[in-house]
């Protein structure tokens, strides 16, 4: 049995600046192993900056400066690790589905191949396993060699989750993964997230408060770059400690 209170990622005084604008202020947050942490907050609350700091995608923006520390399994990811190693362990699913312009099979096999996997059989096994885990296998198993661009939006997003799983990460970040999807596709993505709980730590940034309530074990509320509070989902949605949290989840502002 996994000890759920064990921390996977711990941030300490994490701040993110874009030029002179401070997008994230001194966030101290511990993400527990194999939980789903919902992250909610209005626009410009810093939730995406937080997410992108966790797999160092912020590095791509030359104006961006990250201070404070982020530790994964106790290791400082900005000082003790390469960006590639961080991103291999902490992968990201984006708001818009981003299939690469190649076949379904090649999309899933892309990560493993780049990381040195050459055996065809093993690749086929990884592809099937990943697609099954993302609840996409039955829909695409007969057309693995056709273009991933021809899939529907919901299928593309599950393809992206499968592609992420194929590199065998430890943490999966979701940046509003259902913002462009219809309710049925959303339900399928959420179902996949539940299944993945057995093996992965997941962080879900969402604009949909109800989704955070449905999926999250714990929920963190961000406002203007600050972490207002983080607690069990039940507590956040029934008895938040902070008035601002209450205002946001009841729709009084944001």
């Amino acid at each position, binding site marked *: 049995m996994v000890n759920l209170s064990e921390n996977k990622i711990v941030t300490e005084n994490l701040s993110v600046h874009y030029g002179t604008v401070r997008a994230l202020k001194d966030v101290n947050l511990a993400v527990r192993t194999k939980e789903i942490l919902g992250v909610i907050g209005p626009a410009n609350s810093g939730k995406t900056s937080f997410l992108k700091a966790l797999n160092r995608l912020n590095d*791509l923006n030359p104006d961006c400066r990250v201070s404070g520390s982020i530790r994964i399994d106790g290791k400082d990811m900005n000082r003790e690790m390469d960006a*590639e190693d961080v991103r*291999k362990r902490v992968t990201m699913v984006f708001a818009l589905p981003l299939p*690469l312009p190649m076949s379904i099979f090649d999309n899933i096999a892309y*990560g493993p191949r*780049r990381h040195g996997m050459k055996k065809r059989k093993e690749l086929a096994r990884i592809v099937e396993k990943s697609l099954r885990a993302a609840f996409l296998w039955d829909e695409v198993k007969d057309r693995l060699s056709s273009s991933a661009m021809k899939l529907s939006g919901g299928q593309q997003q599950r393809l992206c989750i499968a592609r992420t799983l194929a*590199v065998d990460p430890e943490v999966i970040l979701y940046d509003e993964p259902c913002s462009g999807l219809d309710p049925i596709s959303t339900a399928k993505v959420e179902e996949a997230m539940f299944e993945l709980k057995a093996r992965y730590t997941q962080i879900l940034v969402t604009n949909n408060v109800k989704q955070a309530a449905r999926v999250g074990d714990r929920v963190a509320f961000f406002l203007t770059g600050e972490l207002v509070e983080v607690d069990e989902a039940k507590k956040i949605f029934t008895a938040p400690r902070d008035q601002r949290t209450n205002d946001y989840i009841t729709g009084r502002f944001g």
Partner: protein
Amino acid sequence: MNLSAKWKQRIAFSVLGLASIVVIVPVVVIFFILIEKGLPAINWQFLTAMPRMGMRAGGIFPAIAGTMYLVLGTIVVALPLGVLAAVYLVEYARQNWMTRMIEVAIVNLAGVPSVVYGLFGLGLFVIFLKFGSSILAGSLTLSIMVLPVIITASKEALSSVPQSFREASLALGVSKWQTIRCIVLPNALPGILTGTILGISRAAGETAPILFTVAAFYLPRLPKSLFDQCMALPYHLYVLSTQVPNVDPKIQYGTALVLVGLVFILNFLAIVVRAHIRGKKQW
């Protein structure tokens, strides 16, 4: 919309349409004249034989072959250099005074008259580096001339690959270089090749840069090495038209037709290559 606005729109459309039609008129006229006057000269012997009687008879094979060699040499030098420079500028270089200087240099390089490239090639390759008047010196000179075209086209092609593809790849822990090699370059390839071939086809028709660096006035044999001079179609055409008395105009127009045909084949190749790669690409 009132009546006068309607009329204004009508007039504007007519002017715009007319301007577009005017563009194709010279192309059609040039082609018509070249085919009418040049086609009778073209036969198997004209394309494959050596010139005879001081270029007044025989074929133009050495000039065709020479131009081919120059085109090939230019591709070999300019394509890798241009694409690598573009990759560096688009993917790696930070925006600072250095990259701005490079970009300004590229734009200015594109504006330099071709005869200046010829003099530059003469000074650097022929004399200073002692390559002599040779295919090597000519190819290098042409390469420098087409580099701005190739770099600009490649940069545009690379920039047009959606940033999201890069992010999707990087987010999987794939390194930047692997991302460029496996995602960015394959998707930019059609644009790069189109730009390159268009640049090269321009080089194939240039006279001034090869004038001092490679072109032979009259050399009825094929070059034996990179350090040999060779004939080339544009220069041969110039010689036939102005330097040799009593040349049958048929031969002049025939030579011009071959040169234009060659350039068109290269351009057509660019279209075919692009269509082929687009067809394979599934988005």
